[in-house]
């Protein structure tokens, strides 16, 4: 057994030696050849990989150069917009009514905030934010246009130093100077100026305002909105090179912003303030306009509201307070208040009848205190129960006789009345330089059928004839129509813009009145004379004119027309007693011979036009006349 195993072992070893003999092992030539063979394979592999790599590198560096180059630039180049300073707003005499003030805000740059929850937690440890402010902060997080979170607005240095004690809790916070709009007369000028606010999505979608890169504040309402593009100027930018951490390395390029242009309004601030005071505790509107060029000297909608609250982020509490105010201060009554004009419409109805030859100046109509219309059970009452007796147009206007106009409008018919009322500017926008103006309403058969699916009743014509019923007019429409009386047909679009001053050159750019001529056609001067005279009688014929009780203004004669519009229809059910009272209206122009201003007064629920509205117009005209020298001198 043993030997066999040994023999096997020897045989095995011999086999191995045969296979791996020293001869073979030391055959240097073969080894060398074998190595060369492997080296050639290695060379081929190396070359293969080399070309694969070079192809890939070519692809990255040459084929996709544009792509990566753009990426590289957007990596390092940041554009930081420089917001432009907003233009100021002045009244016609150069009194500033909208300016910019620097305020200090406590802000945190959004890019520094890593974790929103933890951040808010740390904020709450330093600053007590009420739920409203928290909501505000949350909204700022959502608004992608904002680069910073404003924690506190308009803080004093004193307060900041108090907060700074805890700066270690919120090291990201910093004080930033922000320009904020401020209005020196926020209440009186509220409905003219509107206000500015943070750019919202609605603004971005809006077609009337240009949104610039980096724009934060934008005009929201009023002149601020209408002339946003002039006031805004042009924002500039800084092209910055930043490193991977976002730190600025250098400024590549700077384009300075261009300050917005200043705007001068046609408004006379003193007159505006004077009238606003007259309208204290009243709701309504007073408009003073120069009929010869459409310049609006005063544009009051009472009550006003504090527009300064809106330029900061207004608190929900304050906002609700204004919204829920029963006096509805946010409604711009001058262009959105739609009132039945009452008797102030009578001069126009009279003129239409004269122009159409339906009546002449001598036409007499008997007033017995009421007018009976065929097929109508209820008689149409005149305000004077005992009646005016036999009246002509002039007397009817002077006394504001309703029966006369019932008859006249019945004779004229709704078709002619409505068609001609359009020509005085009723039922359409006046295109004053404010957005969202209401059109009022000139009712006619077509309108009624379309809106109410009912035919026109003859009695409704009578109501329109005395400025009641469906007919609605805004104060600015009434002003424009009155202006057409004062200037014998040649009227101008009411406007608040006087001129702007280019922030760079200092040149003034005046309002182009040529573009805005609005002519009332078919003017018959004889007819106008009758109406003019009647309107003179309203304020001057003692004991006859409805507003003849007014104190006279020295050397000045006013022409006017009172109006008392009934408002029983809509609010009657739910309202207090005051709301049941009539609206008081007064339209006027002065001086009578050479009209310089048209004054329209509407006092909601003010009672009688002669007792409430007319005195306001009278005081306004007196104030204007006393101060006019200065106004005129600025006029050119």
């Amino acid at each position, binding site marked *: 057994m043993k030997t066999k195993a040994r023999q096997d072992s020897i045989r095995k070893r011999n086999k191995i030696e045969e296979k*791996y003999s*020293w001869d*073979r*092992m*030391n*055959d*240097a*030539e*073969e*080894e*060398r050849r*074998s*190595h*060369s063979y*492997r*080296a050639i394979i*290695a*060379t081929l592999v*190396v*070359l293969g*990989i*080399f070309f694969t*790599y*070079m192809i*890939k*590198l*070519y692809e*990255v*560096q*040459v084929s*996709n*150069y544009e*792509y*990566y*180059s753009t*990426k*590289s*630039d957007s*990596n*390092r180049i940041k554009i930081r917009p420089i917001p432009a300073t907003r233009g100021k707003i002045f009244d016609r005499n150069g009194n500033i009514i909208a300016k910019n003030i620097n305020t200090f805000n406590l802000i945190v740059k959004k890019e520094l905030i890593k974790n929103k929850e933890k951040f808010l937690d740390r904020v709450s440890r330093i600053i007590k934010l009420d739920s409203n402010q928290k909501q505000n902060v949350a909204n700022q997080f959502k608004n992608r246009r904002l680069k910073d979170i404003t924690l506190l607005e308009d803080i004093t240095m004193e307060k900041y130093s108090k907060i700074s004690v805890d700066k270690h809790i919120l090291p990201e916070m910093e004080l930033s100077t922000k320009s904020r709009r401020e209005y020196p007369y926020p209440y009186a000028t509220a409905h003219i100026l509107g206000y500015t606010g943070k750019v919202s999505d609605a603004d971005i979608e809006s077609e009337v305002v240009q949104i610039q890169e980096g724009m934060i504040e934008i005009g929201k309402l009023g002149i601020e909105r209408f002339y946003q593009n002039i006031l805004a100027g042009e924002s500039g930018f800084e092209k910055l*090179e*930043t*490193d*991977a*951490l976002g730190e600025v*390395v250098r400024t590549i390029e700077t384009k300075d912003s261009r300050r917005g242009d200043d705007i001068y309004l046609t408004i006379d601030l003193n007159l505006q303030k004077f009238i606003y005071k007259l309208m204290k505790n009243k709701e309504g509107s007073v408009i003073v306009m120069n009929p010869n060029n459409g310049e609006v000297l005063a544009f009051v909608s009472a009550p006003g509201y504090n527009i300064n609250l809106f330029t900061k982020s207004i608190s929900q509490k304050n906002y609700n307070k204004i919204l829920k105010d029963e006096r509805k201060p946010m409604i711009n009554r001058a262009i959105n208040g739609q009132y039945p004009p009452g008797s102030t419409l009578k001069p126009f109805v009279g003129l239409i009848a004269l122009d159409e030859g339906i009546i002449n100046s001598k036409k007499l109509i008997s007033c017995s205190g009421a007018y009976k219309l065929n097929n109508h059970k209820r008689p149409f009452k005149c305000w004077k129960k005992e009646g005016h007796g036999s009246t002509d147009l002039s007397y009817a206007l002077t006394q504001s006789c309703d029966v006369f106009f019932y008859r006249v409008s019945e004779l004229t018919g709704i078709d002619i009345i409505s068609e001609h009322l359009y020509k005085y500017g009723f039922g359409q926008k006046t295109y004053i330089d404010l957005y969202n103006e209401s059109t009022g309403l000139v009712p006619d058969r077509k309108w009624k059928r379309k809106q109410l699916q009912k035919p026109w009743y003859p009695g409704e014509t009578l109501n329109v004839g005395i400025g009641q019923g469906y007919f609605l007019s805004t104060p600015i429409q009434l002003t424009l129509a009155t202006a057409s009386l004062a200037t014998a047909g040649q009227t101008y679009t009411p406007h608040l813009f006087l001129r702007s001053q280019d922030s760079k050159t200092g040149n003034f750019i005046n309002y182009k009145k040529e573009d805005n001529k609005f002519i009332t056609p078919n003017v018959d001067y004889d007819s106008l004379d009758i109406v003019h005279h009647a309107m003179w009688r309203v304020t001057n014929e003692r004991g006859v004119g409805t507003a003849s009780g007014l104190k006279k203004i020295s050397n000045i004669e006013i022409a006017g027309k009172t109006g008392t519009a009934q408002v029983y229809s809509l609010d009657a059910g739910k309202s207090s007693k005051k709301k049941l009272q009539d609206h008081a209206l007064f339209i006027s122009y002065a001086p009578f011979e050479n009209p310089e201003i048209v004054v329209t007064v509407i006092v909601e629920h003010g009672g009688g036009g002669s007792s409430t509205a007319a005195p306001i117009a009278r005081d306004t005209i007196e104030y204007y006349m006393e101060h006019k020298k200065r106004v005129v001198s600025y006029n050119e």
Partner: protein
Amino acid sequence: MSEYIRDQVRPFSGLSSLLHIDTKLFIAIIIITIFGLTTIYSSSGGDLSLVVKQFTRITIGIVTMIFIAQVHPDNLKLFAPILFFFTLILLILVLFFGVGNTADRWLDLYFIRFQPSELMKIFVPLMVAYYYSNKPFPPRTKYIFIAILIVLTPVLMIMKQPDLGTALLIGMSGAIAILLAGISLKFFIGSTLGTFLLAPLLWMNMHDYQKQRVLTFFNPESDPMGSGYHLLQSKIALGSGGFFGKGLFNGTQSKLGFVPEHSTDFIFTAFGEEFGFLGVLLLMTLYLFIALRGLSISVQATDNFGRILSGTLSLTIFLYVLVNVGMVIGFLPVVGAPLPFMSYGGTSMVTLFATFGMIMSVKSHQRILRK
């Protein structure tokens, strides 16, 4: 039996012959180091102190290279096992006393801090070449397994540090050595399959950050601000260099910090950004030249030791280039591997020059085969 005329040096010219230097290799290397110095100077924003430091290392490297080039390959062979086992001991020490930021790879000897794993980059091929030098050809399976053991021992220790990148590089250089020494096709296929089968095992033993890197490699856009960030920024830098490059000192991506490690592992990116495809082509061609020159030296070498050593070392250098550049262009996952002769760093620079000292020693001490 063949006869050799010992130490019959091939006719070299002048100084290079005297110093046992291969002039062509040396010039290629010097050009690359100049590229490296320029890129370091530029991307550090003109920090001369870094350049001076790197220059010092290069000088030390050159001195080391010339010194090693004087050593006869036979003496290298003699020292191979001693060096290998000594470094193995150092690696064991690192496992216990190592220092470092993310992984304990450094050995602090108070007067010098260095990574023993870097030394292994040379000593593993040296040891494999030594091991095969007196083995019969073609090598028996048993010898192949022993060679694999020689390679795997340090590799596993380095993986433990953990330094997966270096471990893989050393493992691959060991594989190259074994392949160059000769291996049957059957065995080659078998071991390749085996490696693939072992891959899941490797995956399970990887650290989370290593796994993350591999995952990111397969889908860099999945995490543009995290691990993929480096890769994307690196590609942007390379791509924005274009054909002619942004020009010296104009590499915005590197200078502004978008490319991390722009002087060390990602120096290729910084170079490519400033010198463009043209520069990259030149650099890559130099590396290719070095690799092929090394291979030709190995072919001309007269003994097995010299052949395996010079062939393995030159292929390993090329492998380092491939790994580094492959990582930059997204061919390979991000592993911390320096670009030979370019990247800022001491140990790697000196070991690389030492490597070429050995190649040059093989080249310049050739025995001419008479027969």
